[in-house]
């Protein structure tokens, strides 16, 4: 009855000798005595199993090879089986034996066994049916019951592995559904294999199903969480590649149906935005593109806009501070190919955007979600353009920028139709309203009128001079350059001016000589050069046709005293064309082409754009106006209320004041917006403090 080492031969429990002995004991009613004897023997000999466990676990810890775990289990099972052999009539005591054995052997397992078991079980996953015997052993040894959490963990590990294998970088196809299916299938196979026979024993299938459901629910959570975590770490690229990544976004939406992952997602998104987007190195255009994609993605993930409401403010604030953001937005608004302009939804007039909006008649109305902040307001469903425009408190900026952009574009187009420009102005009218875009309408009309005028004056035959006649007050302020065009250019101008005056006797022309473009052909002795030049460049080369050598000062004087920089850059242009040579103090025309000398041509200076000087000038003006604010404040304090022309009249006495009433009006208006002034009944007053 005493346990023996495995190496000793086993006495078959049902041999005649044993049976005889048992019957004797039975006769003497000594079974309880026998059991006690057996149990104490078992406990005494248990150190053998402890040794066995120690041996295998040491191996495991040394090599981390899951084979040690398998061997340990097999080995212990062998002990278990051998010791458990008992004569037939002692079968009723088997339960006691199993409980005792399990309790003892599980107690001597070190903590590292959990991990070992987990990793070992992972290896059994690919060939579950082949391991039926193994799971029987695990169940018999009580591992299945004691380590049930590990068994579930194994499944989670496997699912996580599958997600990590199949999902990173895979944004162009939906993954969630297939992962869920495969996880469910795995779960079914696994649980049936591990616990299936336990339930067959208890025959309590309802209980089994309930347990399964609980595990399924947890698994589902786990999948969602893992996928959300993964996608959160990839969110930047996903958003950048949107709409190609739509499936990934759809997956996210399904996962985020439970709002518990949202805080982490929002946090991750914010971090990405801070790191990748809101920094000086990022291009404004890219920021806007990202913002637009972000809006679109979050609209899918969370249609109520709570996430967007939490993520967007830093971007909006940052864009507001970027000086070129307005320009970028406006340029994109007028771009025919821009996708967000092609959205079919009805454009919302901008004025309504800032109003809070709750449509209680909407049958799909939902209360604000739980994680909405206190300052969250359901906003009117906005399209992208309105959202972008609403970054700024006023739309004046946009109108101004639009005016600049349109001006640049209109003056750049040659004789192509203006349909695109007209179309985009019409489209913008729907948003900004008719009145603010009036200036643009005037600009377009100027273009059309100019066309008619030119056709009228020159007939249909092509004429070298085409003049765009603009209404000065409706175009962006153009910084005057005192350029005087020389030679044949002057003649062309004069002729045109005279003809124009004949055509429109009540109007005079004032040239804006620095704007526009000239295509000239230079006939030199050995070659002809045809280039597209600015008027200043053309003027310079015209002077060279009168005389071969010039110095910069003379050129400046001849061109009406324009800035040295302008002349210099024009000269550089012609040097670049190989028409003029820099000979130290003078520049000489190259009638015959010269082989390029060793010295590399001077790098062409960066062409100064037309728009910035205007901005610069505005800034400067605003700055100067601040000086006059003190005068205005003074006179309004003394005289309490004044109409604008009185203010203008009095300011005229201030030294250096050269503003028009319009400019003054703009300034006063801005002061009113800042709450410094009040305007009532045509009179300006200081706001009461």
């Amino acid at each position: 009855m005493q346990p023996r080492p495995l190496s000793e031969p086993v006495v078959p429990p049902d041999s005649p000798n044993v049976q005889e002995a048992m019957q004797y004991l039975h006769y003497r009613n000594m079974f309880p005595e026998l059991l006690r004897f057996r149990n104490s023997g078992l406990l005494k000999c248990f150190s053998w199993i402890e040794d066995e466990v120690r041996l295998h676990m040491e191996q495991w810890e040394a090599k981390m090879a899951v084979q040690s775990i398998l061997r340990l289990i097999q080995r212990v099972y062998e002990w278990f089986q051998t010791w458990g052999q008992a004569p037939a009539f002692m079968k009723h005591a088997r339960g006691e034996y199993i409980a005792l054995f399990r309790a003892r052997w599980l107690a001597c397992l070190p903590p590292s066994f959990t991990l070992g078991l987990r990793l070992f079980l992972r290896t059994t996953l690919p060939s579950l049916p082949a391991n039926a015997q193994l799971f029987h052993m695990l169940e018999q040894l009580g591992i299945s019951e004691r380590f049930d959490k590990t068994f579930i963990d194994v499944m989670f590990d496997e699912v996580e592995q599958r997600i990590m294998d199949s999902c990173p970088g895979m944004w162009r196809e939906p993954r969630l559904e297939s992962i869920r299916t495969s996880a469910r299938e795995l779960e079914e196979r696994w649980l049936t294999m591990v616990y299936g026979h336990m339930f067959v024993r208890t025959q309590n299938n309802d209980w089994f199903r309930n347990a399964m459901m609980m595990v399924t629910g947890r698994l589902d959570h786990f999948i969602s969480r893992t996928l959300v975590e993964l996608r959160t770490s990839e969110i930047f690229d996903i958003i950048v590649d949107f709409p190609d990544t739509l499936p990934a976004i759809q997956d996210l939406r399904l996962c985020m149906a439970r709002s518990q992952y949202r805080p982490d997602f929002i946090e991750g998104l914010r971090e990405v935005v801070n790191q990748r987007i809101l920094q000086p190195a990022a291009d404004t255009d890219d920021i806007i593109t990202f913002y637009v994609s972000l809006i679109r993605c979050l609209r899918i993930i969370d249609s109520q806009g709570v996430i967007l409401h939490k993520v967007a403010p830093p971007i909006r604030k940052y864009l507001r501070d970027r000086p070129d953001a307005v320009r970028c937005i406006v340029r994109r608004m007028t771009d025919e190919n821009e996708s967000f302009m092609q959205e079919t939804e009805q454009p919302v007039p901008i004025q309504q955007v800032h109003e809070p909006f709750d449509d209680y008649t909407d049958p799909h109305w939902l209360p604000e979600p739980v994680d909405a902040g206190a300052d969250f307001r359901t906003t009117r469903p906005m399209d992208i353009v309105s959202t972008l425009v609403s970054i700024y408190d006023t739309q004046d900026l946009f109108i101004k920028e639009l005016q600049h952009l349109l001006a640049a574009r209109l003056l750049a187009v040659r004789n192509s139709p203006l349909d695109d420009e007209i179309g985009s102005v019409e489209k913008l009218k729907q948003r900004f309203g008719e009145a603010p875009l009036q200036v643009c309408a005037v600009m377009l009309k100027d273009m059309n009128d100019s066309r008619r005028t030119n056709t009228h004056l020159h007939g249909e035959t092509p004429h070298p001079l085409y003049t765009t006649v603009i209404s000065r007050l409706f175009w962006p302020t153009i910084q005057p350059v005192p350029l005087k065009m020389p030679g044949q250019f002057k003649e062309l101008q004069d002729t045109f001016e005279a003809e124009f005056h004949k055509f429109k006797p009540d109007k005079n022309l004032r040239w804006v000589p620095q704007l526009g473009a000239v295509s000239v052909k230079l006939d030199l002795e050995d070659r002809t050069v045809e280039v597209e030049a600015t008027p200043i460049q053309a003027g310079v080369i015209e002077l060279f046709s009168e005389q071969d050598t010039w110095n910069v000062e003379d050129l400046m004087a001849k061109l009406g005293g324009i800035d040295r920089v302008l002349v210099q850059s024009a000269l550089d242009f012609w040097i670049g064309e190989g028409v003029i040579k820099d000979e130290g103090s003078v520049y000489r025309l190259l009638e015959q082409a010269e082989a390029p000398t060793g010295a590399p041509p001077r790098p062409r200076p960066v062409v100064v754009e037309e728009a910035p000087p205007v901005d610069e000038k505005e800034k400067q003006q605003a700055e100067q106006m601040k000086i006059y604010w003190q005068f205005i404040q003074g006179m309004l304090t003394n005289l309490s209320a004044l109409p604008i022309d009185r203010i203008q009249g009095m300011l005229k006495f201030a030294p250096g004041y050269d503003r028009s009433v319009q400019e003054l009006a703009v300034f006063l208006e801005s002061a009113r917006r800042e709450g410094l002034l009040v305007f009532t009944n045509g009179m300006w007053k200081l706001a009461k403090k």
Partner: protein
Amino acid sequence: MKVTVKQWNAVAYWKWDTGSTTEADPNPDEDAEDDVCGICRVSFEGCCPTCKMPGDDCPLIWGQCTHVFHMHCLLKWLNTASSKQQCPMDRRTWGRPRDSVTGDRKFGNPI
């Protein structure tokens, strides 16, 4: 070298020929700020409050008294009873100059 202009796209802006500046004025832009309609205080080159398009759609009108206004502004004024058909600036009876509006360029001369 010979320079041939194949195509020149130039830009110019227009100004009403109000006669207040002469062709020979060296600084034609100097007085630009002052040229506002006496009624609506908007620049002549802008448009009167009722108009949207400047220029030919919102022309000027010259009176015998040499004062110039947006035509629409002045007609509106003349239509009010209190105007008594007088120039709002000097209360002389409003009348067109004897010559056609465009004919006489020399309003500025003392009469």
